[in-house]
């Protein structure tokens, strides 16, 4: 019974704000764009002419009603993938996105295997 109550509270807790951010967040987009003329800064952190121009471009695109993903693909067509801090999930990057989880699964399998082996011996 107590367990059920906990579960209910738990899900109540999670449901509160699942659909809050439907607005496109400008600052979030800025943080995902590399300032190409700086040393490893995003345009959100930079005041270079490049960053200022790009911020205006982003604002224009949002005003045109473009979604976040559309803005990214527009900019990466123009400047290359180097500009995106979050690499796209595509053929070229599947290892980057996949290997960590693969490693996680393999690690888990190894541990289970070790325990199984031990319990047979014991």
């Amino acid at each position, binding site marked *: 019974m107590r367990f059920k109550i906990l579960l209910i509270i738990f899900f109540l807790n999670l449901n509160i704000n*699942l659909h809050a951010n439907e607005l496109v967040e400008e600052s979030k987009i800025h943080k995902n764009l590399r300032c190409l003329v700086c040393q490893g800064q995003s345009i959100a952190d930079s005041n270079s002419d490049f960053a200022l121009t790009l911020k205006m471009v982003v604002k224009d695109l949002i005003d045109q009603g473009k979604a976040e993903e559309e803005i990214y693909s527009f900019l990466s067509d123009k400047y290359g993938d180097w500009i995106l801090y979050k690499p796209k999930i595509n053929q070229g990057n599947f290892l980057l996105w996949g290997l960590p989880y693969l490693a996680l699964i393999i690690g888990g399998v190894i541990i289970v295997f070790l325990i199984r082996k031990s319990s047979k011996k014991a």
Partner: protein
Amino acid sequence: MLSNTGNFLLFINIFLSSLTIYSSLKCLKIKNNYIFKNIYQISLLQSTLVLICFFTLTAAFIVSDFSLITVYQNSHSLKPLFYKISGTWGNHEGSLLLWVIILTIFSFLFLILNKNHPKNYRLYTLIIQNLLILGFLLFIIFNSNPFSSIIPIPKEGLGLNPILQDPALAIHPPLLYIGFVGSSIYFSAAMASMISNYSGSLFAQSIKSWVLISWIFQTLGILVGSIWAYYELGWGGFWFWDPVENASLLPWFAMTALLHSLLVLEKRNTLYFWTIILCLMTFTLSVTGTFLVRSGILNSVHTFANDPSRGIYILIFLSLMIFASIYFLFSKYKPTNDLINSNSKETFVLINNWFMMFYLITVLLGTLYPIFTDAISNNKISVGPPFYNSVIIPVVIVFLIFMAIGPQAKWIKNKFSNLRSTLLILGGAIIINFAIVYFLKSYSLISNLILISSLFLIMSSIFDFFKKSRLSFPRIISHLSFGFLILFIGLNHNFSVEKDFNLKLGEAKKIDDYEFALLDLKLSQENNYKAVVGKLEVNNSNTMKRKILYPEIRIYDNPQTLTYEASIQTSFLGDHYLTMSNIDRSEYYNIKFQHKPLMIWIWISVLLLSFGGFLSLFKNAKNN
């Protein structure tokens, strides 16, 4: 003159290192458990001379002896004394000398502090450590000699990059190096352990303190670097998942995994080969990090000095290390009987290692992947914070829960009688999170889970604190503070306020709850820079609080550089953080304002985390 002294000392050190290896090999041939007295003497002399060598360089910096290229390139006669001294290690050549100091002193200390361990094991450790020392000394002499002279002697130095002229950054490298380079001693010990067949819990005891020391310093080094980035880089962030930061984090993951697996090796005499792999991996990752940073392969905010020719040498050195490690692992590997019960402390330690390896692989992959895509397909990609956040954060949630449950398990076999209290604590964590959501603001699903799991860890640790004997205090403190760290990062992230706008002198602006006014601009002339100091008033209409902040735009003289100094007001509840920068061809200034709640608690948590390490070191020293 100083140049000659330095060079002479470097050559003497090469000779002494070779002599140590030679005498150790000779001593190994004699079958008794007695190490030649002269080996101790040489080792002591070596440590002394390497220190003198370093002080020679420091002296050159203090008296501004510009006949040394290193001093000429990195110092200036008008620089404050403190930064002249810290300039010794604030550059590539000098920092390598610091490497060698730590390698040498650790080598000496390991020799004299492990007298109750067998002779062969100690001597092989000494030999391997001295091979590492030789490798670095040769690198210094042939490629990065801090004592190279320049003719004609320049009248004035080029100066140190102004953003490096900072107290935090003066102590950051030594701390980090003790962590990085300190891991060399258990690299050598692991190799020696395989060669001399000295395995098991005694081996674990012999390296435990060293692992703890390097872990503590690595943690503190990362902390200081992070604090520096927070106030000096001027973006209000404290961790950017930048390649150079990642390079310091990679060995940290390996060390943390090692700390835990050592416990199993010590108490239960299993996981020997895995522990060895972790020992070897830690130092290898340290050298890899150095290679990536110093060779200039990576594009980073922290890249201050790089040169491709160094990269090749470090790469060869690194390959030799990896090759030797793999060779010994394969030739010495014996299948062992690692008996592990599913519900025991051993399993939870393995789970810790499992997650640490996941973090390590993710960060390593994220750091190296752009290099590979660039080389293979000529397609440059960036891997930045959004990648790490989305891959790592969901996993952290599960990790924290294991971290809370794990310590309650017993060795060998555990009974799960504590399920009820665990559920109660989880319930408590959820209710607190609910309260935070209700009273403050709602946030995303992931943030909810992060907060719940960190609260769960915190409360479990506090619970433990009252239940357990004093012996587990170090662990409880470290786990507790890790829970706090994640909690404060989570809260900080969710409740940060960020405003970005332009203002001109005398103008005021209202944004949401805040009202900003640029009251005044002043020019000031300091010792080694000129500055434009702004006076900004920040009013919060919600809390009725009024703050005055003084951000600066600085123009340094030697070398001429423009920097933006953030104005930060810290309190226990949160930081007010403001930077001001000029906009070209305009009378407006760009203002970035942030309110970052609980910022100081993030630092305190990390400090506490390493304090747990200190306690553990203390406990370990008392027991042995």
